[in-house]
């Protein structure tokens, strides 16, 4: 009795409840996608062949895992953090050897029985732990550039492997670790520069090169004019402004076209251009040209997914068509609707109101995690909590933005909702480690 009380003591039940709500929502969404009025759903449910019944099994597995984690000792995670990280990296390298090709990326390890494991996803947990471990080292001075670089390396190394696996989507998720790093003292200007860079890239895509160059020049000229008194005092400021100007124009003129034409695959460039409402001319793409020279036909993915996804969400209106009444969902117009595009079924069935409530649940979870983070005594737990928040944020943002046409289509699931055992189990582990750590917040772990 006493022991049981001790075990459940300190567990954030609100968080667990939110978790459960999301998993249930997910199963309902998948049910909506799979539902066919002509087939007796009860029978197909029991037969276990449908994806929602599979997802229910995954949810059961997750529950068992969650209980195990809650029963475990939180010291375990600090102790094994680095080892697990190395194991994760090993798994990722393993994919090059025994990886399975799913939708063009070799990032899955077949486990047999139709189940696959995506190490890159699992590795987010290990990286979180490792980063937490590193940042919570007692003798670490995170104001030093060296330690900042080491932290960034820990965070981005799996991302690098992920890119090599041709799994760009998950690589982006690893940028989530800049949030805990920022919280722990990474200079703010890095984020500002990052955002400015992103803004510049988008501007390059949208605007005529010459127009943008003129605008940049005008901005530089105006800042020189307003800072003319300061420039008189120090010439280095002028040099700095000119340097920035040259850098911006250089990016806009050479770097971005180089990346889009020579680094990215044709389909990647097309998707990114489609996001900002432009069409990309594949004949400029080096990969496409090479392929054409090799006499292979160019794969021409159009924006069918995004268009159908936007139609499905847009047709929901304010209140939606109602549960199981979505015509686009019933007609299977949105590809991958139970996995990456699961948000569309929700958007169509429950409309703007439903989507808003759903998003509020997510936002509430994020707030909750930040609150949990800030009440930790141990910096390991705090950093880990921010890691979880960051990972969730990036998943949610990228996934939903991709369904509503604000982000190019990359294979990123909606946390806890999308169909898929790998992703559900990963997020379960990620979250329940946090709950376990939080439950032990009174213990000084370091």
């Amino acid at each position, binding site marked *: 009795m006493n022991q049981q009380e001790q075990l459940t003591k300190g567990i954030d039940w609100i968080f667990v409840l939110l978790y459960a709500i999301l998993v249930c929502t997910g199963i309902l969404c998948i049910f909506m996608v799979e539902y*066919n*009025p*002509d087939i007796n759903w009860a029978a197909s449910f029991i037969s276990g062949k449908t994806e929602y019944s599979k997802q229910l099994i995954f949810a059961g597995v997750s529950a068992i895992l969650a209980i195990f984690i809650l029963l475990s000792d939180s010291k375990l995670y600090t102790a094994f953090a680095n080892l697990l990280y190395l194991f994760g990296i090993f798994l990722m390298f393993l994919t090059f050897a025994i990886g399975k090709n799913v939708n063009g990326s070799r990032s899955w390890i077949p486990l047999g029985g139709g189940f696959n494991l995506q190490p890159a996803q699992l590795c987010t947990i290990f990286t979180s732990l490792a980063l937490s471990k590193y940042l919570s080292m007692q003798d670490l001075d995170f*104001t030093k550039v060296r330690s900042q670089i080491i932290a960034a390396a820990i965070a981005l190394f799996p991302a690098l492997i992920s890119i090599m696996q041709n799994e760009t989507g998950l690589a982006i998720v690893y940028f989530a670790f800049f*949030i805990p790093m*920022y*919280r*722990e*003292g990474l200079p*703010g200007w890095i984020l500002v520069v990052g955002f400015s860079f992103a803004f510049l890239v988008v501007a390059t895509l949208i605007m005529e090169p010459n127009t943008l160059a003129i605008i940049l020049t005008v901005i530089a000229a105006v800042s020189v004019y307003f800072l003319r008194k300061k420039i008189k005092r120090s010439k280095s400021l002028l040099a700095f402004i000119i340097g920035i100007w040259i850098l911006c124009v250089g990016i806009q003129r050479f770097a971005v076209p180089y990346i889009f034409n020579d680094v990215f695959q044709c389909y990647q460039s097309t998707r990114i251009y489609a996001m900002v409402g432009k069409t990309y001319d594949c004949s400029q793409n080096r990969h496409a040209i090479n392929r054409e020279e090799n006499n292979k036909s160019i794969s021409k993915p159009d924006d069918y997914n995004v268009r*159908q996804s*936007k*139609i*499905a*969400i*847009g*047709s*929901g*209106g*304010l209140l939606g068509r109602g549960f199981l009444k979505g*015509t*686009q969902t*019933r*007609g*299977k*117009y949105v590809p991958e609707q139970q996995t990456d595009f699961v948000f569309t079924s929700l*958007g*169509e069935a429950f*409309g*703007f109101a439903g*989507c*808003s409530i759903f*998003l509020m649940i*997510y*936002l509430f979870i*994020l*707030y909750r995690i*930040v609150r949990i*983070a*800030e009440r930790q005594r141990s910096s390991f737990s705090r950093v880990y909590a*921010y890691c979880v*928040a960051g990972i969730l*944020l990036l998943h949610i*943002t990228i996934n*939903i*933005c991709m369904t*509503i*046409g*604000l982000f190019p289509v990359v294979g990123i699931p909606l946390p806890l909702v999308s169909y898929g055992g790998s992703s559900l189990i990963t997020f379960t582990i990620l979250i329940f480690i946090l709950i376990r750590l939080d439950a032990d917040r009174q213990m000084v772990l370091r």
Partner: protein
Amino acid sequence: MLVQNNNHIRNRIILGIFTAVFAIIIIQLLNLQLFSPKYKIQAENNAILRKVQYPDRGIIYDHHGRAILQNVVNYDLVVTPSESRKGVDTALLCRILNIDTAEYNKRMLTAIFKNTRFKPSTFEPLLTQELYAQLNENLYKFPGFSLQERPVRSYPYHCGANFLGRVGEVSADYLKKNPDGGYQAGDYIGLTGLEKQYETILMGQRGVTRSLRDNRGRPQGSYANGEFDTVAVAGRNIYTSIDIKVQQLGEKMFQGKIGAAIAINPKTGGIIAMVTAPTFDPNDLSPAEYRKHIEFLATDTSGPMLNRAVTGRYPPGSTYKPVGALIGLDEGLITPASGYPCLGAYYGCNTRIRCDEHWAGHADNLKLAIANSCNSFFCNLFKNTIDNPKYGSPRKGYAAWRNYMHGFGFGNPLGIDIAGEKGGNIPDTTIYNEAYGPRWVGCNMVTMGIGQDKMLLTPIQSANEACIIANKGWYYTPHFVDSLEHQSDDDTVYLAKYHIKHEPLHISDADYRTVQQGMEDVTEVGTAQNVSIPGIKYAAKTGTAQVPHLKNLAVFIAYAPADNPKIAIAVYVENAGYGATWAAPIGARMMEQYLNDTLTDDSQADVDRLSKVNLFPPQIYEWRRKKDSLKQVQLREKAKEIDSIAMAKHDDSLRVAATQKEKKLPHDTDSHNHLSPVIINEDKKTSSSPAREKRK
């Protein structure tokens, strides 16, 4: 510790970033879900399959309640080009339809050209049963294609093509002009005849069902539980005055002849039969058969598509004489006792107009003159009508006569309920002013008195003339439709005008009775004494009009029974001979069929005899032969061109080809010579004829 404090504020910044990101998502959702109605429309276009249910088209019944035509269900393969750009198993489709890819592409282009790529067009009309089964099974492999149910007409009696008309795909032109007509491209609409005239009655109301479909176009149940569906309302039936047996009999007897026959119920104006010849089986122009037959029907020199009963303009010949007599009686120019001393010809206008009878006394009174069809009597009467001193001048006399003609329904279309009716020709005085100067007299046009000169009537006007005489002065405008199913006040537009009794002339019953007696005598002692209807006394007038290049036009008008007329008829047979020989038997058999509802054995034998006679003018065979050989020559020329290209390397063969070409050339040029369209253009046929009247 200072750093730690500084970092402590950062959680608020991080929360701010979270909130900002979610705010952006919410804004985009607002934009998509609340301010972009286009997505809703696109979603409907995606998922809602709008299926039109065509109601059964109304049936047209004859007077005895027999269905003249029936509906048969057929299926069309319909394509919406914009939806079939991708994923169509073209190879399989082409194999099923037995076409090649080039044909597939051609049809696709035609569809786009006809109805734009967003609207469905017919890809393969009227599928056979097995084609339907094969396509239905594989339809999911052909996105954008669907099977459209299509009721099609069939005609169990194989007759009446000229007035029933036909249904066909509605033209783009019509759609443009009638955007609110409720038709879509590919719909069928009545194009001619009764089908066109009563389109709104026959078509009914189309029903629309909306159902969901998935990304492969497979149906997924009804949309919104059928809340927006409408039910198809069947078209209304039409009950006509046609007696289909009489019609069939008429068409049978007109086999191998050119002409027309019209039978009208004089008491109601209802048309009993409207025969035109040559004609065709209406089944031949049903949508499935259309392509096979239309070329011949539309281009043949005999003009099988013409409805001669209402568009043919013929000189009435002697069948005009009863009208001439009525005018004379009404004007007081003659009495029933008036006669004319004819001895075989009329010399009153310094020309000789022959009369078939030359025994003295054959025109001693009006009845005899009608019964024996005396040309002299009626030429004289006409001359006196025009030169009537009562009016002061021939011009005014002519005007008065012309007024009578209009009163008898001549010179203008009667206004029957199918389109295309012609007015015949009762010329006004200008044409004579031009021809003879201002000082012409009755003698200039004296043959008008025996139904020749410039007088032209349509067969239906002649039949109407018989009605007027039978009714002693009144008539209803001839029409087909007696009543409509579920008739309501809204339908008065269609039928009210046929319930108005016309009595434009007030000629006395006594005058009519005299003429009737004369016509009764025609069948007993007169020109048609050899033609009888078993058990029925009837009244008639035969006529024989001369036509250039051809044998005489045989004309016959009659009504029966004489004491209580139930049927009035007019028969015209081109290139035939005496009216009593060719036109009268046809008319008599049709009347017999109508009145007795059967034919005696003798009559049946007569029908068989008549149906076997071929009275086609030889010119028509000549024309057909020329047209065929012209086609042959063209085909050969084409084949030779291909050959000559193949053999171009050999100089010899080239020279041979050239000489052959030369040989063929004269043949080519003379084929258009002297195609004076006597048959096609009835106008020319008689206007220039040296008018003379024969009588039997």
